[in-house]
């Protein structure tokens, strides 16, 4: 360390070992709660998730509270879970991606049709599908960071383009499970499962968890991850601090596109078929944003944990399964999820107010 950089020595000499720090002045129970929630953004959704599982467990007994049902919920949220992971990355940069679900469906169609229409080996089609996802992501990224079109507009347009391409390219053919099983089993790879007791974990579920854990690590502990947060929090400050904003944004959108393609692969595994009219194309974006928001990730960027998005997706899955098992009208589920969204953002505002 050179002399010019040892400005802290003065303080050290005086025996004050603490440097610049935020003072935690707030006292009392509420203050502590607020502080804890602020430090662990995924805690609120986790508490809601556990409470919901416990509530439905008490209400429905063994039917709900069994390993079979609980892991079934994981299978039901695996697509939204993977899409939410992708969505989280973009939202952390203060963007939004409306094209995620549609891109996933287009990638399933590419993986399927390249195999059946063009006769390529399924593994190669799979690779092409994944590359295509990354390519569309790169286009989104370029339009956002270079052409400076707001992310909402860019991806609103891309969503429509991708949806239309899906219909045009697929000629509306559904590839059926019998075809896939016989000729392209590797496309169905993620539908295989391991059973432990009554619990069934499909490879898709395991992959979803791996993606979430890997991204959580990358966001928390790598320079790239910190740059993503910095760009989302304040791009100008990040630029001044030496972060390459363009490169960071490009990497985020490319990765998002790639993860969407992975979601497509997960989707083929789950439904054992390739259907261009899959509703994920139309509502996948809203479902993923819902999971992200319930997961306590700020739509203003720079704040939130990817675990939150995963818990958010799980919360929606638990509510849907629980209410379905209880025989409730499906509209109640949508109503409850609406309330959860507003509640989650309200809570977020409260935590921000305290921490400001």
């Amino acid at each position, binding site marked *: 360390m050179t002399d010019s950089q040892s400005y802290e020595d003065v303080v050290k000499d005086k025996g004050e070992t603490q440097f610049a720090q935020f003072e935690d002045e707030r006292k009392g129970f509420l203050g502590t709660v607020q502080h804890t929630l602020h430090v*662990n953004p*995924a*805690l609120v959704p*986790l508490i809601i998730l*556990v409470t919901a*599982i416990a509530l439905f467990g008490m209400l429905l*007994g*063994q*039917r709900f*509270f*069994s*390993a*079979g*049902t*609980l*892991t*079934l919920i994981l*299978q*039901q949220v695996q*697509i939204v879970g993977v899409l939410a992971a992708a969505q989280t990355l973009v939202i952390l940069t203060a963007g939004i991606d409306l094209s995620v679900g549609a891109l996933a469906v287009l990638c399933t169609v590419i993986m399927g049709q390249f195999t059946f229409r063009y006769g390529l080996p399924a593994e190669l089609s799979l690779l092409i599908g994944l590359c295509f996802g990354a390519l569309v992501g790169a286009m989104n990224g370029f339009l956002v960071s270079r052409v400076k079109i707001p992310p909402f507009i860019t991806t609103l347009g891309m969503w429509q383009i991708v949806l239309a391409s899906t*219909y045009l390219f697929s000629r*509306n053919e*559904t590839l*059926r*499970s019998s075809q896939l099983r016989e000729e392209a089993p590797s496309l169905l790879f993620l539908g295989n499962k391991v059973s*432990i*007791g*009554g*619990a069934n974990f499909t490879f898709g579920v395991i992959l979803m968890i791996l993606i979430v854990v890997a991204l959580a690590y990358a966001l928390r502990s790598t320079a790239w991850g910190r740059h993503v947060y910095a760009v989302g929090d304040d791009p100008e400050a990040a630029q001044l601090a030496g972060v390459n904003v363009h490169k960071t944004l490009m990497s985020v959108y490319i990765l998002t596109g790639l993860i969407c393609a992975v979601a497509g692969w997960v989707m083929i595994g*789950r*439904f*054992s*078929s390739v*259907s*261009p*009219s*899959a*509703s*994920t194309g*139309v*509502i996948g974006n809203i479902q993923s944003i819902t999971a992200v928001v319930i997961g306590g990730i700020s739509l203003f960027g720079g704040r939130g944990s990817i675990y939150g998005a995963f818990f958010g997706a799980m919360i929606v899955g638990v509510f*849907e*399964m629980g209410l*379905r*098992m209880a*025989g409730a*009208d*499906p*509209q109640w589920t*949508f109503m409850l999820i609406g309330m959860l969204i507003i509640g989650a953002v309200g809570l977020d505002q409260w935590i921000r107010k305290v921490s400001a």
Partner: protein
Amino acid sequence: MKKLLIGTALVAVTSAGSAMADAHGTSACLITKTDTNPFFVKMREGAAAKAEELGISLNSYAGQVDGDNEAQVAAIETCIANGASGILITASDTAAIVPSVEQAREAGLLVIALDTPLNPIDAADATFATDNFLAGELIGKWAAATMGDDAATAKIAMLDLAISQPTVGVLRDQGFLTGFGVDVKDVNRWGDEDDARIICNEVTAGNEEGGRTAMENCLAVDPEINVVYTINEPAAAGAYEALAAIGRENDVLIVSVDGGCPGVQNVADGVIGATSQQYPLLMASLGVEAIAQYAEDGTLPANTEGKDFLDTGVSLVTDRPADGVESISVAEGTDRCWG
């Protein structure tokens, strides 16, 4: 945080050994495409009434939007986990749903397709449906008979359901053309005909808005169109609006399928010339009966003779009966309408 998560998982796994389902009576599931369309609302009423009569419990599920395969897959999984005896399903994607249906049948549930046959049809244990081809054929024959000699030079607009060509839409379309006397080529696809009388094939999504737009598109191709086939009555109402906008509502023959109460009323009002009425309430109540029977002694429902499904019947509703085509009056149609 990690502890909490691991704790939850542990509790979940340890409880796995216990029995999957509670001891409870027979239960059935009804899964429809959406829960807003009056057709499915009626189906649900029919199923609920019959279930109450037989003392079995009924859970109803629906997709959020038409074509929502994912929600139906989740619903089937719930029924299996819930220990239901059988499932009545109107599939949104007849091919894509098949793996889930197989799963349910392997788990010992009786699966009956209502209204819409699966692809392939034998993927379900049974199908309770309208003969949609016959429904189309009836309105085709009626239109041809009503037009008489002019049928040879008719200009036909075909307002179909969706570009994904769901079987129900294909059957009605091809039935109509067959009844009208057009060579349909491949009977499993609409749009491949080369008969010059067909002016256009447009899709409507089965609602008023889609019907109007589709009719406008067809009129742009040829304003002289004089026969309009519509997939259902809301689409017919939309087509009528488009015709009324250019003052041609009185010299065009509109035919449709469904037999919903607003549709039958439209036949009475002269908006629609004739419609083929189907009976969703009957499908659902017969379905619930079949599940109750299956739960009791394992009997599988039988098909109507000569068909690969159980035909729940169809009647042509019109107040302008045509020679050689059997029909019922609007008054009778109103008595038996749904929605």
